């Protein structure tokens, strides 16, 4: 008899046996997850999606008073409001991608335990729904920037490097997703990691030039912070808008290599864990 099975269920799959075709087949599901995340978050709130604006604005104001007015950390001659808002907007995207994908398995154990679909659909949908959020917040950033130019005489210097913006965002998405799924695979067994992650991300923010410019640091600290793969992204973003700071192709190249390697490694680990995580979660 001819053996033509549509599917064979085996104990283990080889490391590189990643079914991208299947993920593509489930693209409708990914988009529905994105929709679900977006629609369900603001249901039964009075302000609804306005929270997308309120949160970065208030954080910016807090940073402005704490770090600029009290701690007197300079912002490289960039308008402090725009400086912080740009940092927070970008950082939020990275940290949301990272932290929200990092509990994929634990948070979805109920649904994963009952039905099969490619598990990567969940973290991918998180990255996409955060991308929409980022888009809205960048519009906010532009609006505030226009306001500052018109009413507060703030000088900015948007230059051709602005065209690299989509690539910067892609790098952050890739890095956040990669790190997130690595952690999600490990937290199924060792929950300790989720505690580590919460303050780890916080610490990472202070190791990234969000509330201070890279030029503010010097010596050993400077080279340490330069090594942070997120640093070139932040610096390039500000350079593109304000023409101040550093723009370093080689730094971006290193970040790109790092990001894609992390994602590659993440997909491999995730792919191995997703088959049997139900037994350990």
């Amino acid at each position, binding site marked *: 008899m001819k053996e033509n099975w*549509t599917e064979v269920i085996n104990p283990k799959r080889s490391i590189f046996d990643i079914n991208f075709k299947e993920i593509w087949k489930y693209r409708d599901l990914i988009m529905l997850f994105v929709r679900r995340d977006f629609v369900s978050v603001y249901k039964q709130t009075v302000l609804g999606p306005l929270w997308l604006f309120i949160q970065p604005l208030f954080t910016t104001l807090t940073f402005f008073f704490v770090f600029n007015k009290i701690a007197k950390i300079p912002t490289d001659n960039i308008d402090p409001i725009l400086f912080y808002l740009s940092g927070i907007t970008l950082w939020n995207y990275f940290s949301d991608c990272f932290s929200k994908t990092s509990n994929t398995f634990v948070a979805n154990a109920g649904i994963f335990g009952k039905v099969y679909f490619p598990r990567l659909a969940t973290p991918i949908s998180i990255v996409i729904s955060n991308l929409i959020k980022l888009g809205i917040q960048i519009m906010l950033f532009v609006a505030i920037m226009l306001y500052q130019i018109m009413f507060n005489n703030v000088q900015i210097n948007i230059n051709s490097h602005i065209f690299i913006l989509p690539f910067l965002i892609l790098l952050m998405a890739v890095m956040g997703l990669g790190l997130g799924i690595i952690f999600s695979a490990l937290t199924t067994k060792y929950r300790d990691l989720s505690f580590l992650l919460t303050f780890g991300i916080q610490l990472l923010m202070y190791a990234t030039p969000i509330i201070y410019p890279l030029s503010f640091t010097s010596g050993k600290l400077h080279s340490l912070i330069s090594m942070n793969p997120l640093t070139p992204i932040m610096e390039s973003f500000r350079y593109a808008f304000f023409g101040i700071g550093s723009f370093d192709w080689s730094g971006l190249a290193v970040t790109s290599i790092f990001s894609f390697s992390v994602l590659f490694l993440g997909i491999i680990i995730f792919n191995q864990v997703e088959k049997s995580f139900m037994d*350990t979660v």
Partner: protein
Amino acid sequence: MEVIKVENLYKQYRLGQISTGSIAHDLNRWWHTVRGKEDPYEKVTGLNNRESSGSNNYVWALQDINFSVNQGEVLGIIGRNGAGKSTLLKILSKVTSPTKGSIKVNGRIASLLEVGTGFHPELTGRENIFLNGAILGMSKSEIRSKFDEIVAFSGVEKYIDTPVKRYSSGMYVRLAFAVAAHLEPEILIVDEVLAVGDAEFQKKCLGKMKDVSEQGRTVLFVSHNLVAVKSLCKQGILMERGSISFIGSAEETVEHYMKANAEQLNTFVSYDTRSNAPGNECIKINKIEVNPSNPFITDEIKIHFSFWNLTDDPSIFLAFDLIDLHEEVVFGSGFSFETGLDNLCHGTCIIPSDLMNDGVYSLQLYFNSSDMRLLLNIPSKIFFEVADKERNYAYFGKINGVVRPKLKWNVG
């Protein structure tokens, strides 16, 4: 044509808390595999047996499972709780992976165990139909083309744009089932759906099962409900402690299951001498027997008692409570016994047919003197099961109530 082929399937589980020591086990396991050796924890894995606790923390939830299913077959899988049925289904639906062995599948598998999976309470019925459908593997266009049908089947048109958290639980289940029912899989898994939901819902599920099998598609039906298995399935598999103990027609499989169960039961106790018999200085139990040993609800059940009366009282009043598995007293009955030869008292109680509900029962015994002083109160070691019969109407669930008498109805 074979649509499912399960070969040498094993599934290992780790018992107890997974925390301390798991890093050490993982490292040890990894060290053995890099050197090309066998998994050190595979050898020490115990049998799937809940009654006896093994000396180690690993257990085979499934052991050497082999079977195949042909297209259009309705296969019933039965077994006690913990026999491995659910584990098998989880592997079949790719929720978890086997430890060893393989399953080959031809066609899309869908399972009615996923009814309502992924429903988000904040989303409307319409949004949830799309989300749930996509989770179950349908594409957006597929759902769109069946949308009206799904809504009509569910009967919640009026509330389709209301968040499902406002739905009654019945509406919720109906909508969820409507989505699952329009999945059109080649292989359908039905797991204990009969246990939940009302009679109407059961009817729909079973109707859907019949439709699916009549269209030449395959159904795997997992249930405790022997009546439903016998009535709906052609083939059967009996699972016991993680392995298959019988494969055959549904009828034979159910018989095997009942026989295996009956071995766990105890319908006969007998003691030859007074010294080893249970009791006290007044009463010693000689013999208790339930006849027939595995009765149906339609059978008359005779319980024979025999005991030694060691008191001077010429008559003893014996009463018993009939207790079900929920420790609930179904009813009590008693009668006066005259002491015969060798201080022995004999008597039989007859429980009429069509009175008891199906289930497992035990007896609590009370021995009283003729002036109704309690002499001995003792649980008997008797456990007997009253089994249900096939039915020819659509409801296969357990009929409610501690008893199930056959009553006279006048209609018209």
